[in-house]
């Protein structure tokens, strides 16, 4: 078990290294234009460009340039924006991270509950009318752009109905948990539901497929021969085995959301998380900020995946011996 964890972490570090090289190549070695001019932003003076060139060692060999980039990002943490001169990138990211985590964790709790419930209900009622409904919701969920759904939710809760049934929905924005837990939840409830709606549909669909497969397994026949109730067979035997792929899916999605996929939801609901930070810097083409967000996001995803894989080994006894 320990050996497995060590191996998994090592491979995660290798992947992080590769991703850092990839990011480096994208930002500094794409053919076409001077990377210094690109990083310095649209309205950069020659002096700033020269400054960038020096800071990132753009006249030195590639490996040194990579090392300098990593140094600015992770060790000195002094990477600064050249659009809003003087603002440091790393503190901005650490400030925004709790917002993103609030959004994603809350949504994840909701979607896991709804998704598992939906999948179990659909599998238990195979062939009855509720099954295709849940399945269609699952298809719709992969077909709706998250940001657009967010806008529709905004339109409903902040538009015409805001003065009647949705008067309790606060205007978009964020209140830190430490300041007021009630306000925190109230401000996040619509973003949570929006994000969770999509993932719950996908999870219900995936879980249903897994459950239907599991119900055809030999061990379910054994469980029936043991005289267990259908309910117990579904929940204790089939669901327990089907949750394993769901957990690995959850790890990927959770990591991806924290790492940047929640960005669209943040933009629509005006939540000042890492996503919104990325979005505003995209509008200004503020490359240092984008680079920072991408790198931190990608690292978080890789780390989350490693953690999930280790958790997976706890859930599935078969993995541990491998």
């Amino acid at each position, binding site marked *: 078990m320990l050996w497995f964890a060590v191996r998994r972490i090592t491979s995660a570090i290798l992947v992080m290294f590769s991703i850092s090289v990839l990011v480096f190549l994208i930002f500094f070695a794409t053919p076409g234009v001077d990377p210094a001019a690109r990083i310095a932003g649209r309205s950069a003076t020659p002096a700033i460009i020269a400054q960038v060139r020096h800071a990132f060692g753009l006249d030195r060999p590639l490996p040194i340039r990579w090392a300098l980039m990593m140094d600015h990002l992770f060790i000195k943490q002094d990477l600064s924006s050249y659009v809003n001169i003087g603002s440091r990138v790393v503190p901005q990211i650490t400030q925004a991270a709790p917002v993103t985590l609030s959004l994603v964790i809350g949504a994840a709790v909701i979607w896991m509950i709804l998704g598992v419930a939906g999948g179990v209900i659909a599998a238990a009622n195979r062939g009855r009318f509720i099954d295709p409904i849940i399945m269609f919701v699952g298809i719709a969920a992969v077909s709706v752009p998250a940001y657009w759904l967010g806008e529709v939710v905004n339109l409903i809760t902040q538009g015409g109905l805001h003065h009647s049934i949705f008067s309790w929905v606060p205007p978009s924005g964020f209140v830190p948990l430490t300041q007021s837990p009630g306000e925190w939840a109230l401000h996040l409830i619509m973003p949570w539901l929006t994000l969770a709606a999509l993932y719950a549909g996908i999870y219900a669909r995936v879980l249903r497929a897994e459950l239907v497969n599991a119900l055809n*397994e*030999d*061990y379910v*026949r*054994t*469980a*029936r*021969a*043991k*005289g*267990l*109730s*259908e309910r117990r067979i579904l929940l204790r*035997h089939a669901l*327990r*085995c089907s949750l*394993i792929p769901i957990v690995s899916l959850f790890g990927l999605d959770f990591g991806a959301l924290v790492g940047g996929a929640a960005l669209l939801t943040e933009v629509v609901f005006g939540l000042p998380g890492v996503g919104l930070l990325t979005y505003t810097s995209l509008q200004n083409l503020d490359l240092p900020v984008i680079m920072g967000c991408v790198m931190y996001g990608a690292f978080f995803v890789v780390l989350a995946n490693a953690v999930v894989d280790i958790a997976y080994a706890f*859930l*599935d*006894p*078969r993995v541990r*011996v491998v």
Partner: protein
Amino acid sequence: MSFATRAGVIRAVDGLSMSVERGETVGIVGESGSGKSVSMYSILGLLRDANVTIEGSVLFEGREILGRPDSELRAIRGKDIAMIFQDPMTALTPVYTVGWQIAEQIRQHTGASKKQARKRAIELLAEVAIPDPARRVDQYPHEFSGGMRQRAMIAMALSCEPSLIIADEPTTALDVTTQAQILELLGQLQQKRGSSIVMITHDMGVISEVAHRVVVMYAGRPAEIGTRTQLVREPRHPYTWGLLGAVPRLDSKRTRLITIPGTPASPLDVPEGCAFAPRCAYRFDRCEERPALHGDDHLDACWLEEPDKVRLRRAIEEAS
């Protein structure tokens, strides 16, 4: 008993009538697709599909259990009638320990506490000769070898002292040595507890070792029913001759196995008359008509006259 499928209604089992006495082992033998497993699954209500219809009667300890609601069958399954399945690799839920799964069944049918059930599980594992049962009880199925898993399955089947055990090809997935050990174990446990066993197999060798009585099935119909001695010494149905020829015999001078020509009848397309006729070397005009099972304690469904059967059998034995 029939299945409704896209290709039409299949009569998977047709005209099977058999009984099992207390303490007796009945073997059901036949090639794959001959309906041996489905007939036993249907007894227990394990075939849960709207497309399956079962007609007839199943009496268990004098009570009709066919058509009973699932809640009643559930109280019988695992408690009075237990099952052992063919593939021990997949028959146990992979994410629970072996002990947990045995205890689950005990707790389902008795009011045992978790502790009691676990203690009982260890005793059962010891009884099926699993070494170091106190440690093994907390292991997962994948940590058991194939033979050990089948032992664990047997322990599970025995956990509620069932009066009938249905073993569906319990040794097919195992290697020869393990096969013999498992069969021996089943025999010993039966002697000790006096439960009845229905042994489903395609292997005449297994049958001749453990069964008291044998039912030979072909294409969902019984071909021959009799005691083991009758079946092995004086088989009457040409299909049984073929099955016996497919058993390697140490005393045989010729090493080549006799095989039955052709492939088993498709259940979708069972011939009008004797189902075995198209593959039978001794068929004649009457085989166009479906033969009834006839005889007193040794029954068979073949149109050949009794003296002819004896003569042909002798000829086959001499040839081999």
